[in-house]
């Protein structure tokens, strides 16, 4: 992380940066946090928390190399903190504004696909599931490593292990999704 001491805070530029980033990453971040938290309100709080901290850190002059990875890391840690606390007694930003959570709660309670939900049943460890989830959000290994507190090399190993387990589970017919099983077993297409 670089910093230029003495430079004035470029708040207008930072706000535009946040707008761009929000439009680009908010959906994926909310999906990820929702899957991790099993609770859409916590996920929304994590989203707002991540972006607000991003604003504060940028206003403080911090240069953030990978904004996406940074936001995912903050959201990840926020959700874990909330889980640790056990109950959702923290006041989120929406209470500051007294606005309701913009995520549509009833139908969005399980935003993650059946496939990702099924990963646990396939015997994947929490870390492997997290790696798979983050990769589906197009995070680089280095960014995933940053989010989960791992080495980049470990991310590759965890993903390989996860693929092995998925293949084994599909082979044993653990997963009920036939399309997935066929796709995995048959290798419908090869994307280079």
């Amino acid at each position, binding site marked *: 992380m670089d*910093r230029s001491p003495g430079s004035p805070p470029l708040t207008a530029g930072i706000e535009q940066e946040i707008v761009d980033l929000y439009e680009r990453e908010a959906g994926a971040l909310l999906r990820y946090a929702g899957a991790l938290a099993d609770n859409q309100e916590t996920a929304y709080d994590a989203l707002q928390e991540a972006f607000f901290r991003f604003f504060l850190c940028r206003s403080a002059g911090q240069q953030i190399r990978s904004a996406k990875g940074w936001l995912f890391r903050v959201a990840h840690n926020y959700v874990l*903190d909330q889980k640790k606390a056990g109950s959702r007694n923290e006041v989120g930003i929406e209470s500051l504004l007294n606005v309701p959570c913009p995520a549509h709660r009833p139908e969005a309670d399980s935003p993650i696909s059946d496939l990702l939900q099924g990963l646990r049943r396939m015997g994947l460890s929490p870390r492997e599931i997290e790696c798979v989830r983050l990769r589906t959000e197009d995070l680089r290994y280095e960014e995933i490593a940053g989010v989960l507190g791992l080495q980049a090399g470990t991310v590759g190993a965890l993903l390989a292990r996860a693929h092995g387990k998925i293949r084994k589970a599909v082979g044993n017919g653990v997963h009920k999704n036939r399309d997935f099983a066929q796709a995995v077993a048959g290798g419908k297409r090869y994307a280079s």
Partner: protein
Amino acid sequence: MHPRGATLVAFCDAEGGVDRNRRIAKHLSKCEKCRNQLRRIQSEKDKLSAGAAIPAMDSKRGLAGMLSAITAWQGSPTSGAASELKGRLRRQIETYFGSPAVLAVERPGIRAEELLGKASQILEVFLGPNAAEAVRDDVFRGLDWAGPAGETRR
């Protein structure tokens, strides 16, 4: 020699590095078994990515809420959250450097963001960037951004 599973997964994710990927591509052109394995990995990956649905959310409303929060924060530099943030930063500097160091970093009437910047800078230099990042997380953890500003807005 066949590449390991992790190597093929990394190749599939374009993560292996240019030279390594070139070697693997060369091997794949000759090895049917590895090509099949790579196809499987790719199809699993495609399927997992396609399956992850974007949750329904009102992005414009969320963004508007975020920008209002930022404006509210900027408009009330002495809010409860700002004071709490400054207090936490002071405590971190005291913990890692000592009480006199706070005087070197802080000046009267300093804004929370400015103190955050200065504290981050000194922590990054002396503690290392990763540990400083962890300290920042610790400072932000559970901070009630609402505070008196939030109460007045309700």
